[in-house]
């Protein structure tokens, strides 16, 4: 595998190892040469700041290996295909239609959805069970597509808090394992980033993008709002919601913001399809399984 990205990260991460005190005078000379810790962090930021699309996809692939490592996909090919159809159609309305968009439902009863750079999107089975129609799903997928389109996760990694982790992982990977170096380097930052979550403003922005992408795709624009109304009535300490509620603004705040952004503008698109029948057929198997 490998790419310019890993090279950047590994070279610069070597220096992080030095900062950690595992090198001698040569390392000190190197550090002086690149301008100490500040210079190092600046270089690391530049390394990720110039990520090209193929590298972004490679990174997303690596992050998704860890996300699907937490819970694998639901064994239901028709459901997986269905979610890919809806997702591909919604993503086609974005400014990055050429990305190889991939969607999956993971076998988790928790209610959540995740996006990784390059177009990898995971929705939990618990979320699928909570949604009522395809317009709601389009809104939820549109929100995740919004994170990818605006590179929210890439930017979060660049902000520095994750750089030490990425660097340490890359240094470890370069020192030891064979193959999958980037994946190994990404394990730490992935866990940290996806359990901490993005900035609230990124989430509000993704809601507005999800709204518009679902509307562009021809759906009832209130799908996302409707799904948030379902989330808003669930008790905040429900264990199935813990990670979602920790990593996102509360659903009522999101609804208030979304309501302000929607105003009456989207009334033009009322009476657009919700496709509840098609959605219910797609989730019939997982819902039946949950009842047995």
């Amino acid at each position: 595998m490998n790419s310019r990205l890993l090279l950047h990260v590994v070279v610069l991460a070597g220096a992080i190892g030095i900062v950690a005190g595992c090198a001698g005078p040569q390392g000190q000379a190197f550090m002086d040469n690149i301008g100490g810790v500040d210079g190092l962090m600046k270089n690391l930021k530049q390394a990720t700041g110039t990520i090209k699309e193929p590298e972004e996809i490679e990174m997303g692939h690596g992050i998704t290996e860890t996300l699907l490592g937490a819970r694998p996909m639901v064994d239901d090919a028709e459901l997986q295909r269905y979610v890919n159809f809806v997702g591909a159609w919604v993503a086609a309305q974005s400014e990055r239609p050429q990305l190889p968009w991939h969607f999956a439902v993971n076998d988790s009863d928790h209610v959540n959805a995740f996006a990784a750079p390059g177009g990898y999107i995971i929705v939990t089975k618990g979320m699928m069970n909570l949604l009522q129609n395809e317009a709601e799903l389009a809104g939820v997928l549109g929100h995740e597509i919004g994170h990818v389109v605006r590179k929210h996760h890439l930017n979060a990694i660049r902000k520095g808090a994750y750089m030490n982790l990425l660097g340490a992982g890359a240094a470890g990977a370069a020192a030891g394992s064979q193959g999958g170096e980037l994946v190994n380097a990404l394990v730490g930052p992935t866990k940290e980033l996806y359990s901490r979550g993005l900035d609230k403003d990124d989430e509000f922005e993704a809601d507005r993008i999800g709204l518009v992408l679902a509307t562009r795709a021809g759906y009832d624009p209130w799908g996302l709002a409707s799904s948030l109304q379902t989330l808003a009535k669930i008790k905040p300490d429900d264990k199935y919601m813990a990670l979602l509620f920790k990593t996102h603004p509360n659903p009522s705040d999101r609804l208030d913001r979304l309501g302000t952004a929607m105003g009456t503008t989207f009334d033009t698109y009322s009476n657009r399809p919700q496709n509840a029948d098609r959605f219910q057929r797609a989730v019939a198997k997982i819902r039946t399984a949950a009842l047995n």
Partner: protein
Amino acid sequence: MTRTWTWMAAGLLLSCAAAHAQETGYTLRETEVKAKPFLDAENVGKLPEKAQVTVVSRQGGWTQIRADNKLEGWIRLLSMRLGSPDPQKKPTAVATAIGFGKQRPGGGPTVTTGVRGFSEEDLKAAKPNPEEVKKMETFTIPPAGAAQFAAAGGLNAQTVSYVDADGKFVKVKK
């Protein structure tokens, strides 16, 4: 026989969906009640803040409601919330919201499933699973396939700009 059970379960789900449509909510603020789901429709009354309502149906940005005082009509979807205005009072569990975990008709046991988690702990304990990502990538749909799927669902692409936090249209910076 298995099929019969499957259909019965599906029927139960549909009745859950129907029950879902009959759920209750409350107004966030003083709200006009309209005769029809349109901005310029006739007002049939007004509800105060935190008025309890029963949801009858939904259409686009409007919810058809019935209030305690028998007032019926349409209010803006985003001027109400589902559930109770007091979060301490009867909060809904996920299982209830989905319609699972309820007593089955005929007195069967309460439905429970083993928790398959994606909690913070599950995430922290995760090991990369390359095979699953390869599997995920096999489901990718080409653009032509997506367009066909959209047409079959009666979906027509629209031209709509992004909106900012205040609802103003914005141009996309490429």
